């Protein structure tokens, strides 16, 4: 179920921390049972509307600093069918490239009105939309003069436990992608490009926000009649 042309390896020495953390031994193929076509189903109570607006959900009386963007897309399985009512959680740095996380201490200002965290459920057509600001690049210590390209982290649940995906969305035309060992850890160039969002002029709102689109395709579970149980 893991496509090894598309999915990155556990150990990719250019990304330093994989060297000691990635499993080194071969994976054991595991037969799945009927129970493995199940997975968590997040109810409406787990998110509210404000969770999808990162420009407002942590505001403390001021405006979030940065270029406002609307990010939208569709969550699909490998057969092209929409994955509806699925939970997506996102997090990102602010416009200056600083995370609110206590362990990010790099020399860029915090935005008191921005947490960079959001979450939402996909709709009946598998579509999602959230509003945020464009994150900045940020330096990290992987190698000399290392900078992560601006990115938004996505955590995605599919129809079953094994459809789980954690990934990062990047922005078109970013020169830092060529230098980034996390992005470059994906073996195939066409697969890498799937992580780059597209500028979407039809989503752009005049005078308000630029639009970007980013579709996500999840690996399937077993091909059984139970696949549509939560569909």
């Amino acid at each position: 179920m893991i496509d090894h042309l598309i999915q990155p390896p556990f150990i990719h020495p250019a990304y330093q921390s994989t060297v000691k953390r990635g499993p080194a031994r071969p994976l054991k193929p595991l037969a799945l049972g009927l129970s493995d076509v199940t997975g968590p189903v997040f109810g409406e109570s787990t998110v509210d509307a404000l969770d999808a607006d990162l420009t407002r959900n942590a505001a403390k009386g001021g405006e979030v600093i940065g270029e406002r963007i609307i990010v939208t897309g569709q969550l699909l399985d490998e057969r092209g069918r929409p994955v509806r009512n699925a939970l997506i959680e996102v997090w990102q740095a602010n416009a200056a490239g600083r995370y609110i996380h206590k362990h990010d201490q790099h020399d860029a200002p915090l935005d008191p009105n921005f947490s960079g965290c959001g979450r939402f459920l996909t709709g009946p057509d598998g579509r999602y939309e959230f509003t945020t600001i464009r994150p900045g690049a940020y330096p990290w210590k992987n190698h000399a003069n290392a900078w992560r390209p601006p990115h938004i982290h996505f955590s995605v649940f599919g129809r079953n436990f094994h459809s789980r995906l954690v990934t990062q969305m990047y922005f078109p035309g970013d020169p830092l992608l060529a230098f980034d060992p996390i992005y470059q850890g994906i073996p195939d160039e066409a697969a890498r490009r799937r992580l780059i969002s597209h500028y979407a002029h039809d989503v752009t709102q005049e005078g308000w926000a630029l639009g970007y689109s980013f579709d996500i395709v999840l690996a399937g579970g077993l091909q059984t009649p139970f696949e549509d149980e939560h569909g």
Partner: protein
Amino acid sequence: MSGQTPSQTVGPFFHDALFLDERTVLAGPEAVGQRIELTGVVTDGDGEPIPDAMLEIWQADGDGAFHPHVESGPVEGFCSFGRAPTDEAGRYAFTTVKPGGVPLSGGRMQAPHVNVHVFSRGLLIHAFTRVYFAGDSANESDPTLTSLPPEQAQTLLATSADGVRWTFDIRMQGEGETLFFEPGLDG
């Protein structure tokens, strides 16, 4: 080449986003099964603790039934899904029940087990393993455990002195490396 979207690391800064709700307690007062604590330490190839990992678990209740719905607020019955961070010492902990066995397709019974996903900085894609329970009589006929050399099967066994606090350490690499799986159609 399939159309899957590739994975990227969860990175070190996920806690504020992914721990808005408490998800370490899967078992409420009405959960079916023996209440247990499932805990352990996650270490790297040097045996050093990994303090910035996240575990997600998926398991049946004591009757072998899955309860997929996740809502906000404390669990009254049972929720099959849990999520926990590791702390500064690399330790995670869940409050749950010992699961009942669940069948494979074809009807062969599996021994009680908990499915685990490990995410962290330094993992470009999450790792999948299982926790089985040392001393459970069903282990001797479990299709997965019995297909493994003993030293690999050993890495999948949680241990307990009292049947209530179960320890399952995860060694990502190196000596005693935990066995990780690739889910698929064939064993």
